[in-house]
Every structure is written in C-alpha cells, then in structure tokens.
C-alpha cells in the first residue's frame, strides 16, 4: 500500500513564505525551534541557512531563560525550504486553494479543491493560518484576504461550524515596511549580531551559517508619534473581536495603537531589521498598525531616523477564525471528527515557532494513523509538560483554550530549569528516533554528543582540588560559605557556581576545556548550575506523570457524580478530559473534586488491570 502525503498551499509559491517578521526564535520561542529540530523538523535547519543576524536574547540571565533568535533572509528561507521539501520522497506538492472538507459518517475522507477536484485522504491536517475567513483591515477598508495579495478561505469556516466546532475570531497585525536607502542611521543605536553566531540546529556549527551577518538598529517612537496616534484613534478599523471592536490581538506583542492607549506617557523602542542580504526592505519591529495610510506616513515621519523614510508596504491588521483548541486531543486530532487534525493559528496561537511545534506533532500523528490503516489505536506521538515546551504548548491549548493569540514564554513551563535549549535533543531525539521520525544521521550525531557529554563530565568530576588551590588559580575568586576550612571541590561543582564558567576553568586546566564542543559546554554548565532544581523537577515530573496519565473512565456520567457542582459538570461534559492531568488544568474545578476524581481514576486503573488479568486467564 502506498501512502501519499499531500501538502496543499493556497499558492504554489508560498511554501516557506513568512507573512510577518522574518525572524525565528526568541525567549521561549527559541526553545520550540530547538525542540522541532530535535525531532528532525525543518525550521531550525532552514533558519540557520537563511539567518543573517543571530543574537541570543536575555544573555545576561541564566542559560535556561536565554532565547536563541535569528533574522532570516526571506528569499533564502523560501528557497531552502522548497529545496528541502522537494527532496522528501512520497511527498507530492499540490498548488491550489482548499475550498472544503469531505466528511462522511462523521469521519474526514478528503478535501475539495477550489476547482472542484476531490482529493481522498484518511487524515487531513488543517493549518489555515490567518486565512480562515481572514479579513484585512487598513483604516476603514476591509478586504477578504489572509495576507496582502492572497485570497481567504471562507467555505471552510461553515463546514467546521456545521461539524460542531466552536469558532471565534482573533486579530494580528504587521507594521509598514520601509526602504533601507531612505533611513538615516547616523543617530541610531547599532545592534551587532553575536560573534560567533549560535546556530539552532544540532547538525550545524557556526561555519554552516552565512558568513556575512548584518546589523540591526534601534530607534524609538517620540511624543509626537504618540500625539499622532492619539489624535487618529477614531480612524482605527472596527474589528469583529475584542472589547468595543478593538480586536482580540496578541497581548504580549501589541500594536502601536494599543501601546499608545495603554501607556500614553511612554515612548516605545523600535528595532529596524533588514529582511534580507539583497533586500532593501526594513522591518520596523514594534509598530504594527492598521491606521489609514496617510496617518501611517505621518507616524513614520515622527520617528528619529525615519523622517524621510519611504514606506514600501503599509501596515495592516488581519482578523481570522480560529477553533476552540479544547476540542482537540494531545495528538492534535480533533475529538469530533476522526482523521481531522488542526495545527497553528487555527488553534489560537501566534508565531511561526508555535505553529511549527504543533505542525510537527499533528504531522507525525496523522502520518502514523494513516500508515496504520486508519486504526484508532495507532501509535501516538504525544509530548507532555515534562518533555518540553511543545508539550506545554499543546497542553495549555487543550486544557485552557485560547482567548487571545497564544504566545510561548519560558514562564509557561513549570519545569523551566529542566527544559532548556541546550538539552532539547537529549530530551526528544531518542524518543523521536524510537518512533521512527528522526533519521539515522541525526541520531548518530546525537549519540556522539551524548558520548562526549559523559566523557567530559567524568573528566570534570575527577578533577578535584582544594578550595585554596582553586582560589590561587582563578583571579579574584573566593570560595564562600563553605562549612569546612579548605574543602575539596570538583571542577564539576565549580561549574555549578554562578561566578564560574568554562573560560575560568580553562585557566586552571586547559585540558578540561579544550576540544569540548560548544553544545556540550552549554549543556554541562546548565546541568551543574541547576543541579538541585533539576533533581526536584525529576521527582515532580515522575509524580505528575503518574497522575497526569491516569485516564478517566470512558463514558463517565458526570451527572451522576454527587460531588461535582453544576458548573463543574458542565465543564467536564463539554471538554471531555481524557486524563486527570487535563482535569487539573481545566479552570474552575475545585481541589475537592480533583481529589475525588483522582481516586476514581485510581480505582478505574485497578479495575482495568483486573479485567486485563482475567481476560488473560480466560484465554
């Protein structure tokens, strides 16, 4: 039996097109890119090849909360992504717009193309982006489109609605683009890229990246900017979503208009980011807006360095449909329509990284289900909150839903110090390999790294000196708070101090540091630094998994549970949680009910085990 994987884009040129800021990663988002890479996804690899400005955000803070980020060249990214996709066997790329789904007997059986052609499929992953009934707003102009120049998909919304999905609208926006030639950089703050740059992919070293890295610039809005925006607030579009038609946009990436409304007394910084090596376009990061064109022109003029800047494309806002993600399973297959998967903005998220993270999970599971003859008990690839940020993201969506565009942060991960960029591969690559989605080359690379880690860690642990010896060899360094006068300390313990890092260890013994690859250094430093917390997390994760994966009895009749309040019953009936962990994160379930549901799960588990035992005996 042959499997065909269809990748349908609304326009054949669009694979790897970035609607918004051509950048990847950031605080929290960098983790997602690293995890996608650890599972052999393409985002990190492609971003590395197209990166023109690599910089680690939060560099002054600890390694667990630093964020890898890069500006990418739009054209190169698109070219590289196409090249990688074209190389994949069994993948047919079909250009065209999907008009509708074919749903038969409650199951998805295919898609209908714009030209009426029907393509049969067991599994369909819907990644509608901002195209699902997308409407572009610019001043009071409204255009049905998902991106400037691209048609929106409207038929799908109705089908989804008819199939029982709850739809709502979200808003996002993009700033006007500028011509670099017309910007006066002389008075602006320059932002150099990191040297050497740190690549996303575990398969890359700095030498695999584009050698010529570009600089960015920093400017600020002025009081005049605030004035212009404030005086023109009534010219803003009226959105379908949000309070008073303000639009339900990303809270942590607000438009200029929202910033002015919220903080009228402040000015705001703007990063001027080049969109490519041979591209004159500059992306002014921080001022997405949907004011009328003439106002946008005024706004740009009011900003230092941009007085004479030419706008090459005006900013706009886009409003689109999304589906309540609480109707999904952890595989991202929908609960009501078997075979139908959702990933990306359709689930209420914002950002490429969040979309990619869902895409890889939905893709893996749709593939697995398809290969396994559409059997409902197909091998599932599920990540939980202890596995990584991908697990956190999906779990948040499934249990809390999304009332505003969901963006990843490090604070969403309760096991933050354990889920780091430097161990994404150690957390996920083997898991992916065992499932069959990580190729041999990556797995071998991973094994070599693992070996190097244990070798280096052994070396560090066996290098033991007295406190006095360390002090004498490291300038301006004192071992404090020690119980004994002159304790013995290993190099590994030294690495766990916040005031010691690899270069200082190198001063003491170059042997320890030489020929240790950077990824190994990063990993060991974090492990040593967060040793105590990592240990606590391990126990917590084990305990949480024990309960987390306790499954609730199927067909449970919540109406008959005397300890549930009416609201709780309604909630549980609506969202049909499958595991206790999901109940925990449903808002509004009291601890009291949890205790009892917990006990129920345990009894259920025992009953299941017994049944299994009996059935074995009978056989």
């Amino acid at each position, binding site marked *: 039996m042959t499997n065909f994987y269809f990748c349908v884009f609304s326009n054949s040129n669009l694979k790897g097109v970035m609607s918004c800021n051509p950048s990847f990663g950031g605080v929290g988002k960098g983790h997602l890119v690293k995890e996608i890479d650890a599972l052999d996804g393409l985002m990190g690899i492609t971003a590395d090849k197209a990166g023109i400005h690599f910089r680690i*955000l939060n560099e002054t803070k600890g390694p667990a909360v630093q964020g890898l980020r890069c500006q990418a060249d739009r054209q190169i990214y698109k070219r590289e992504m196409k090249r990688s996709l074209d190389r994949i066997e069994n993948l047919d790329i079909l250009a065209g717009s999907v008009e509708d789904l074919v749903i038969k007997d409650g199951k998805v059986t295919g898609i209908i193309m714009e030209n009426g052609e029907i393509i049969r499929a067991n599994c369909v992953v819907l990644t509608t982006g901002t195209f699902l009934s997308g409407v572009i707003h610019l001043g009071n102009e409204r255009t049905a489109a998902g991106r400037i120049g691209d048609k929106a998909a409207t038929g799908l919304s109705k089908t989804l609605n008819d199939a029982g999905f709850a739809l709502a609208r979200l808003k996002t926006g993009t700033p006007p683009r500028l011509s670099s030639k017309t910007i006066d950089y002389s008075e602006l703050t320059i932002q150099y890229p990191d040297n050497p740059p740190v690549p996303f992919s575990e398969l890359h070293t700095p030498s695999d990246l584009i050698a010529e890295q570009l600089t960015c610039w920093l400017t600020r809005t002025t009081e005049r900017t605030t004035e212009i925006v404030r005086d023109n607030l009534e010219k803003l579009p009226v959105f379908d979503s949000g309070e008073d038609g303000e639009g339900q946009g990303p809270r942590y990436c607000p438009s200029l208009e929202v910033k002015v409304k919220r903080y009228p007394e402040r000015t705001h910084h703007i990063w001027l980011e080049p969109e490519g090596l041979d591209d004159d376009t500059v992306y002014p990061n921080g001022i997405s807006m949907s004011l009328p064109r003439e106002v946008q022109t005024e706004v740009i003029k009011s900003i230092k360095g941009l007085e004479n800047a030419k706008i090459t494309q005006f900013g706009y806002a886009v409003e689109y449909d999304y589906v309540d993600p609480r109707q999904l399973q952890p595989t991202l297959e929908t609960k009501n329509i078997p075979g139908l998967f959702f990933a990306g903005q359709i689930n209420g998220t914002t950002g490429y990284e969040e979309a990619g993270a869902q895409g890889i999970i939905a893709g893996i599971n749709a593939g697995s289900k398809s290969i396994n003859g559409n059997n409902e008990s197909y091998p599932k690839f599920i990540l939980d909150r202890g596995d990584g940020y991908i697990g956190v993201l999906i779990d948040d969506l499934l249990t809390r839903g999304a009332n505003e565009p969901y963006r990843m942060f490090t*604070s969403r991960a309760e096991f933050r110090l354990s889920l780091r960029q430097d161990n994404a591969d150690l957390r996920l690559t083997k898991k992916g390999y065992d499932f069959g989605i990580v190729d041999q080359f990556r797995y071998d690379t991973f094994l070599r790294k693992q070996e190097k880690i244990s070798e280096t860690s052994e070396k560090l642990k066996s290098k033991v000196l007295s406190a006095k010896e360390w002090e004498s060899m490291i300038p301006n360094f004192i071992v404090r708070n020690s119980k004994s006068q002159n304790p013995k300390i290993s190099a590994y313990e030294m690495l766990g101090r916040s005031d010691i890092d690899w270069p200082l260890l190198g001063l003491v013994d170059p042997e320890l540091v030489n020929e240790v690859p950077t990824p190994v250094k990063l990993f060991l430093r974090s492990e040593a630094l967060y040793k105590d917390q990592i240990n606590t997390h391990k126990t917590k994760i084990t305990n949480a998994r024990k*309960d987390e994966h306790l499954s609730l009895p199927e067909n449970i009749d919540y109406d008959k549970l005397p300890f549930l309040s009416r609201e709780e019953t309604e909630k549980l009936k609506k969202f049909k949680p499958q595991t206790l962990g999901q109940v925990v994160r449903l808002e509004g379930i009291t601890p009291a009910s949890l205790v009892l549901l917990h006990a129920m799960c345990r009894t259920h588990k025992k009953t299941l085990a017994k049944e299994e035992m009996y059935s074995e005996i009978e056989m």
Partner: protein
Amino acid sequence: PFLRGARAPLLPRHRVQTRASRGSSDVCVLHRPCHSFVSQTPEVVPQPRRESLSTWAFPLTSEGNETVYALSSAPGRAGISVIRVSGPSASRVFSDMTRPTGIPKERRATLRSLYAPGTEEELDKAILLWFPGPNSFTGEDMVELHVHGSIAVVNSVLESLAGLGFGMAAPGEFSQRAFHNGKMDISSIEGLADLINSETQLQRRQALWQMAGGAEKKYERWVQDLTKLLATVEALIDFGDDEQIEMEVLKDVIPRLAIVKREIDSHLHDNKRGEMIRSGVMVAIVGPPNVGKSSLINLLARRPASIVSPIKGTTRDVVEVRMDIGGYPIVIADTAGLNQEASDEIELEGMERAKERFKDAAVRIVVFDIGTVENSNHVIADFQQLFSEDSSNGETIVVFNKVDLHNGDEAKLAQYESLKQELVQNVKAIKTVHFMSCAQGEGVSEFLGVLEKSVQTLLLGSSRPSGECGTLITRARHRKHLEDTSLALQQAEDHISSLEIASEFLKQSIDCIGRITGRVDIEDV
C-alpha cells in the same frame, strides 16, 4: 488518641465530643502524653474516602453510602439528642420515616412523628430541620433530627436510617464532605475541631477565629503578595530584554520580597503562643526529693493526683494534670525528685524524665523544702548543679515549701526576704521566688496568682493585657509550612541575581503556604 492511617478522621470522633461535653470539672487527670488530649488532625490534606469511594467508582449504579448519618450529640441519656443525615437521599427521612410525609420548609423547625420505615411503629416525636444543599454544612442535602435523648429512641432511629440504606458516617466524615464540597478549607476545619475540644475561654476564642477563616485570610494575602512578586520576576525574565525594563524593576522586587519575609518571620516568632493556647502551657514541677512537689500538684488539682508519702522517691514517673488557671489552659507535670545519691535504676530513669520535662516546660516550678535550706549559696549551688542546662527560655518560679515549720518566727521571715533577693540577683533564670505551705494552705492563693501571671504573660505577651489571639499559629503543621515558606524566601533572596532560580524558590514558597489552607494541586494529593 486516634491512630493515623487511611481512615484518619478530620474531626474527632463523636465520642470525643462526649468527652468535651463532660468537661464540667475543670480538671481531668491524664496519665498519657498530654498531646493526645486533643485529637490530632491528620497532617495534610484529607485522604480520599476509600470505603465510600468504591461506590463512586465506575460503574456508578449503587446509591449505597452516598447518604450517611451519625449521632452528632453525646451518646447516653440526655434531654435531646441530635442525629444528622447528609447526602443526596437525605430527604427520604421525610418520605419514609415521618407523618405527615413531605419535605418541610427549609431551615424551619418542624414537629413530626417518627416511624420505622414501612411499619406502624412510632419511634418518637421529634423536631426536624431540612437544609437542602448546597446551603448546608456539608454542602449536600441534610436533615437534622432532634429526638428525645433516650438510648432506646436514638438506637431505633439509627437502625431505621440504616434500614433506608444509609451508611454510618465515618468519624469526621461530615467535615470531610464540607471540605470536598468547597464549604470549608482545612484550616477552618481544624478550627472547628479545636472549638469542639476547647476547654478554656482563650481556646474557644482562638478556635472561633480560625474556624471563621481568620487564618486563611492572612495566608491568602501572603499568597497574593508573593504571586504578584512572582509575576514581576516572570515579566523580567520573559520581557526584560524586549522592553529594557531590567534593573529599576528589580530594585523594587528585593524590598517587596523582604517585607513579606519579615511578616512571616515575625508571625513565626510568637513564642508558640497559639500552639500553647491550643494544647496547653507545659508546666513542670521539679526539685529535690521529698520537698512537697506531689503535694503541690494535688493542691492545684484539688484531688490526689499524685501519691504523697514521707518516703523519698515516691513519685517515679511523670504525673500530668490538665487544668484551667484563670481561663488559661495548662498541663502541669509532677516529676521524680532529683536525688544526687540515687542509684536505683528506676529512680535514675525517673530523674532523666524529670530533667527532660524541666527542659521542655514553658513554666518551671522549682520546689525546695525551706527546712533544709541553710543559706542562699546552698540553694544556688543546688540549682546550678541540678539544672546545668540553660534554662533561660521560659519562666522559672522558685517555691520554698513547708514555711509552716517557721510559723511566727520573725527572724526567719527576715531571712526569707534576703534569700529571695540573693536568688533573684545571682541566678538569671529565676524571676520569682515564693514561700508557701502546701500542708497548711499558706500562700497558696498568692502562688496561684503568680502562676497565672506567668502563664498569661506566655500566652498573651506582656505587651498585650487583653487577649487578642487572632494572629497566632495554632498548629505545628502550620508552623512547619510557614518555616518552609520563610526558608524558600531566603533562598529566593540569595539567588536574586539569577532570576530564573529565584523564581523557583518563590513558587516553592507559594506552594508551602497553600498547603496550610489545603489549596493544593494534585501533586500533593
């Protein structure tokens, strides 16, 4: 005392209420560790009710023990007895057991004849109260039956309730249901248990405050403050680089953290007054053999709690008496005499225990026989030899017994005064010296005054004459969690330069406080 275990009750068994209700006498003698007096609320969160859960386990067909009943007043003959029924089928009491049938008006006393279900057998005429859920104590439908307090009536009504298929409530089950239905948090339930067990006015006041959620409010406020702090730290981590808000905000975080920590620490530094109010102030009577220690305790207890004889070393073990002195709860212990020539193994063990008590006691009464005292140096030497341990924590009262030997001897009286002066001047631990005669009752009421004053100072603090007890920690469990909170905050402070580590400790501190009120996540269950 109740053993801890799967069935650890949240509330004392109903039998305990009996004991409390019997407490018309202010003294009862306990020859067991005094802490067992008040039933211990199990550490942590209530255990899931295993027995009754089996009926909730899938499939949920059996209505079984979802409705439970219990005699809520003391068993035995009384004017009236109160039986409570709680659960979804509670109203069946009206349809199956009363004439006329039908559910009465809610929260209104109704007089009805009670019948054994399905028979013409009248059991009693009773007052019934109907509390439909969720506005009831447990949050479920509840019926209260006020029957005549006869053993026969109560037994027949309980049998009838069992006949309806209702289950006998496990000890503390009503409170457990209240907790599970979100009617009470754990600290309030503990307050209720304390109220039922309260014997003194101070205990009652403290328990009522806790039951009303007083403690909870205080802890909740800390949780709120810390959560706000955590949010700031998280914003710094996730948006600090973006928004360039770094340092100025951090400057604000450090003092805010310090304020909460200081508040918790000062709450902890209450000299354990709340716990003492709850379980009684520990008072130890110690001294050489045959000086009248046992006579003193018997005098205080107004009964022969301890055997008194002229034979040295009559008291071998610790004898405890709980009592109420001026409204303050105390646990007073008579101990074996400290005999420097002792060689008998039992006597030596008794002395060990006496010294242990001396060390742990909040008030120490050191008794000497005035007849054997030669001069102050002799007493000081004895004192220091016997109690080499640092005894400066807590109050020490020195009592010279048997002053009746010197009755009317003016010279001796003058000597007493100088003895007193010298002792107070030379031994730091001694604050009060008292002369009395246990045999003749001389100086007893003055002594009671002295003891009451010491206990009062301990419980209320010297600065506050009127008892405002609302801010005290009442249980070791609360103290433990607060200490953990303080420790975590200290760690957060120490790691403030690594925000991501400080944040872990802040989260930990919030978890710790959460455990006091039982607002816990599933991990803790």
